[in-house]
């Protein structure tokens, strides 16, 4: 089974780099990792072709432990959903790996960087290829671990080390729920295999579990627990706080996390479990509402941020919200479609912003991520500028760019969805307006107007080298054209190729709208995209004094948004600090001081005195040992006599 090589190649690259990197490979680490991930990509394409020809591969490669109905197996499932994910993960990773050659050049931990990056890709590939929940969980946790390594890659920088820890700890909250969900699946279905679980889902449909006196549907509970994990990993409310901080890692890592290897895991998992989610309207509504609210919530924060990567980070959270919104209204393929197009333009946005940061950094600029200190970079970095524009056209949903197709599909499905559908559509459309605004704001602040740093710095700004710009061009190609696999049927009858492709796994979304409805939705989304652009154009290019005026006028609101709704502070006050205080008092003071110290020091000292006592009996005389033996045998005899 050659497809086992897809995750194996990055794993081998990791092993080679981590074992031999420090001494032998050093700054040639990319010669190991880049071919490995490109090899994975080629195999992924071949797997995709295989699936496209109608084959679904589901085999257990290796049974590690088997015990009754519980087994720990490494098995892969390659179906249309996995095939799409494989293409996304390996193609984006390949480009990011190449880009990193230039970006990380000269870093002291170069080999370590490529080792972790390879491990990250391996984990994500295991996650998407698993054919059982245990392996999925393994990939899930491994991805979390790698993100910790990579976000805190520059661990000597305190903010980076803290961000790494934050990502790991916040994810633990979600993962705890996810772990419980997996256990509950095993208890309910007696198996962790996808085929068994999904095949028997309808049997369990009516069952309930008594949960603190309330009868909760078993399926609902499973889905909500699984969704906890998705909320953590895909940075949805209220566990989104780690993602913006995650940009403390090197920019290629941010791109990888945001586009391919981490945040998409939650979306993928929910889509993978669609036979379960379909049975629980409660869980579906939860997914949709969390997605919709996150979309608009994150978009409002992005409106006022000044850090170039932070704006893009909040934009990711917002776009992930769209994907969950789609999943929640049952339009799984629309969610995966958006995941796929988003991966290209978001990777592009990150890598292009990395190009900007790289250039400013090398020009000696100190505040290299602050957009307020940029401006006028258009003439110095024409390539970066152009790809940035292309990515922005795509993310804001301008027709004929890939983001338009997938976002429109989501808006349309939300609009058709009953119940909360119209409300969610409204949220999504509003978020689209904001997306257009902050995306263009970013462009105008960074590339237009006058450079707001010193002249000397401006003099030194150059376009990035080819190893950086070539991946940008390739991604730009994806950002523009990736969407053409899912043209709405209203334009072209057999246009929705990706929807058809995914249908065997994800089914067809419910409900058919009229042409009028569809045109209305499309018109609105084009309108909001243009409106957002126009506002940004007016504020940041024409009347540049306007932003400050508005800021002064709506100061409380601006402060609220600028400080991200104070959620970090809220968590710090309500969770982190009480926890620290409690652990200081209770654990350090009482448990550690009395109980643990007591046990750790007490037991050995007790044993020491005990064994000292024994040694006194034993001074050169072994007869005491013989005595103990004899007494032991006698005790057994006595016990057996009395037991009778």
């Amino acid at each position: 089974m050659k497809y086992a090589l897809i995750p194996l190649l990055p794993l081998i690259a990791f092993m080679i780099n981590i074992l031999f990197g420090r001494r032998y490979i050093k700054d040639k680490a990319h010669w190991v990792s880049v071919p490995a991930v490109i090899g994975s990509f080629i195999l992924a394409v071949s797997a995709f072709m295989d699936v496209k020809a109608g084959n679904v591969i589901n085999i257990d490669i290796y049974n590690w432990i088997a015990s009754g109905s519980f087994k720990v197996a490494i098995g892969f499932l390659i179906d249309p959903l996995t095939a799409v994910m494989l293409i996304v993960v390996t193609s984006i990773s390949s480009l990011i790996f190449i880009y990193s050659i230039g970006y990380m050049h000269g870093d002291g931990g170069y080999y370590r960087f490529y080792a972790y990056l390879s491990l990250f890709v391996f984990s994500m590939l295991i996650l998407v290829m698993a054919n059982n929940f245990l392996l999925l969980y393994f990939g899930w946790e491994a991805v979390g671990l790698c993100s910790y390594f990579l976000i805190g890659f520059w661990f000597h920088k305190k903010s980076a080390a803290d961000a790494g820890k934050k990502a790991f700890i916040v994810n633990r909250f979600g993962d705890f729920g996810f772990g419980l969900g997996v256990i509950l699946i095993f208890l309910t279905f007696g198996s962790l295999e996808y085929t068994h679980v999904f095949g028997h889902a309808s049997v369990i449909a009516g069952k309930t579990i008594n949960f603190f006196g309330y009868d909760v549907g078993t399926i609902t509970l499973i889905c909500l627990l699984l969704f906890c994990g998705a909320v953590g990993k895909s940075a949805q409310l209220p566990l989104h706080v780690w993602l913006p901080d995650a940009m403390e890692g090197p920019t290629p890592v941010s791109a990888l996390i945001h586009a391919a290897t981490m945040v998409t895991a939650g979306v993928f998992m929910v889509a993978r479990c669609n036979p379960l989610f379909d049975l629980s309207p409660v869980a579906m509504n939860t997914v949709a509402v969390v997605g919709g609210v996150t979309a608009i919530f994150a978009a409002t924060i992005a409106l006022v941020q000044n850090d170039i990567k932070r704006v893009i980070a909040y934009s990711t959270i917002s776009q992930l919200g769209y994907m969950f919104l789609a999943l929640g209204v049952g339009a799984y393929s629309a969610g995966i479609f958006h995941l796929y197009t988003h991966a290209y333009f978001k990777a592009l946005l990150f890598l292009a912003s990395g190009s900007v940061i790289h250039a400013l950094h090398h020009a000696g600029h100190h505040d290299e991520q602050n957009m307020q200190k940029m401006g006028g970079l258009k003439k110095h970095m024409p390539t970066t500028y152009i790809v940035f524009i292309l990515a922005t056209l795509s993310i804001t949903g301008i027709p004929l760019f890939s983001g338009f197709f997938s976002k429109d599909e989501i808006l349309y499905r939300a609009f058709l969805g009953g119940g909360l559908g119209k409300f969610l559509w409204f949220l999504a459309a509003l978020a689209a307006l904001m997306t257009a605004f902050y995306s263009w704001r970013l462009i105008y602040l960074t590339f237009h107007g006058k450079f707001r740093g010193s002249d000397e710095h401006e003099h030194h700004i150059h376009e990035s080298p080819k190893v950086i710009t070539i991946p940008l061009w390739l991604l730009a190609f994806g950002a523009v054209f990736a969407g053409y696999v899912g043209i709405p049927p209203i334009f072209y009858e057999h246009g929705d190729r990706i929807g058809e492709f995914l249908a065997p796994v994800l089914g067809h979304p419910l409900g058919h709208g009229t042409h009028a409805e569809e045109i209305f939705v499309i018109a609105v989304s084009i309108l909001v995209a243009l409106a957002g652009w126009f506002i940004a154009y007016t504020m940041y290019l024409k009347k540049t004094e306007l932003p400050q005026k508005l800021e002064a006028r709506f100061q409380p609101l601006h402060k609220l948004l600028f400080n991200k709704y104070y959620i970090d502070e809220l968590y710090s006050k309500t969770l982190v600090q009480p926890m620290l205080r409690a652990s200081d008092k209770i654990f350090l003071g009482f448990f550690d001081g009395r109980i643990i110290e007591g046990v750790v020091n007490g037991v050995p000292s007790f044993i020491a005195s005990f064994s000292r006592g024994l040694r006194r009996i034993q001074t050169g005389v072994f007869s005491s040992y013989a005595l103990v033996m004899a007494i032991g045998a006698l005790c057994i005899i006595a016990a057996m006599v009395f037991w009778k």
Partner: protein
Amino acid sequence: MSHLRSMILISPELLLVLTALSLLLLDFLVRRKGTLAVAGAAGIFISAYVNYRLIKVGMTGGTIQGMFAFDGYANFFKLIFYTTLLLTILLSVKYLAIEKISAGEYYSLLIFSTVGMMIMAAATDLLMLYLGLELMALSTYILAGIVRGDRRSNEAALKYFFLGAFSSAFLLYGITLVYGLTGSTNLREIASALHSLKLAESPITMLSLIFFITAFGFKIALAPFHMWAPDVYEGAPTPVTAFMSAGPKAAGFAVMGRVLFDVFGGLQMQWSIILEPLAILTIAVGSIIALSQTNIKRMLAYSSIAHAGYALIGIVIGTPEGFVSTMNYLMIYMIMNMGAFGVVIMLKREGFSGENLEDYAGLAKRHPVASALMLVFMFSLTGIPPTAGFIGKFYIFMEAVYAGHIYLVIIAALFSAVSAFFYLRVVMYMYMKEPAGDISLSTSKTAGIALAFAVIMVLVIGVFPSLLLNFARNSFFG
């Protein structure tokens, strides 16, 4: 014909005896002592190969008037003994040179001891069993005291000898009682007599069962018959300690399994009830006292006691599947334990014992490979996946859960967590502490081969557990 057949079936043992005798002679003829190790290893390989061929051509069954069995059960344990013997010889070469131990004598005693173990595993008669046990024991007594100038070594040998004699008395008493009841020393005949004469419930039978358990419990160092072990393990030369904690222990389990299942099969309830508290006590004593040890040999001695307790759980369960998990465990324990001792042996050099925990401080900085090996062995002894130690514990615990011994598993798992403290403390010393002074290792090619083999097996079994488990299962069920 039957004599010829007997000779063929015991030819592996005979070849080993021949090797041991020739080594004694060669010792006078050869000046380079390394040659002796090579010659010994060659003889062992030939014996093992002959054994392997016998299995392959389908030889099986009893011989010597039904006193000796050539069966899968015996062959599984023989594999453990052969491996222990070879690894011990490979690890000893440098040590012997440092301690100036007479090589010919040393190697031949190791081989004689192994022959004893092989006879124990194959014995189907109580007298043959006793013969093997004494051959093994007498050889190890001498091995423990082979460093004649070292008082600790002398003390170890003497203690071991007297207590061993004491335990042999228990065994002989048990044999006498059974013979008195049934008029036979053949395991199968005893079993059928106990059954047909309805003697299973007799108090005398019970008494003999308890005496057997006491005697075998001494060999595998079950609490409260374990007290000799830490002293002897600490005092004996380190390669001998490694050998004793793996080989004779497995041999003790081999005879225990055969006697309990073949003779006292009808009393399974009773021996389970006797052994269950002994298993808990053994694990508890081993794990708790190991916590406070700062001498690594002594720590490994207590760890070896604890591991015997885990392996005993498979017998407590009382099912054939349970004993299969014990066999699986013994093989795994032997390999990881030999590995751990192998690293300890490497730290030994002229005038420096290398047995204290402090000696491991900062080892990783100076000797990353040796530290990495020790790390794997410590992880395995703790039972952390994907090492073999995890697999061993997992299957024992799993069988115990299936048999309904849930509390036993919970207690064992808790002590397993306790054991992480003293195993991982070694890792902590190696990786987190600064080296105190210059540490140099007594490395040798032979030790390198032994350690490489051990670490590869620990990982291979950890990743492909079914290979070994199926082998154990097929061996047990024939």
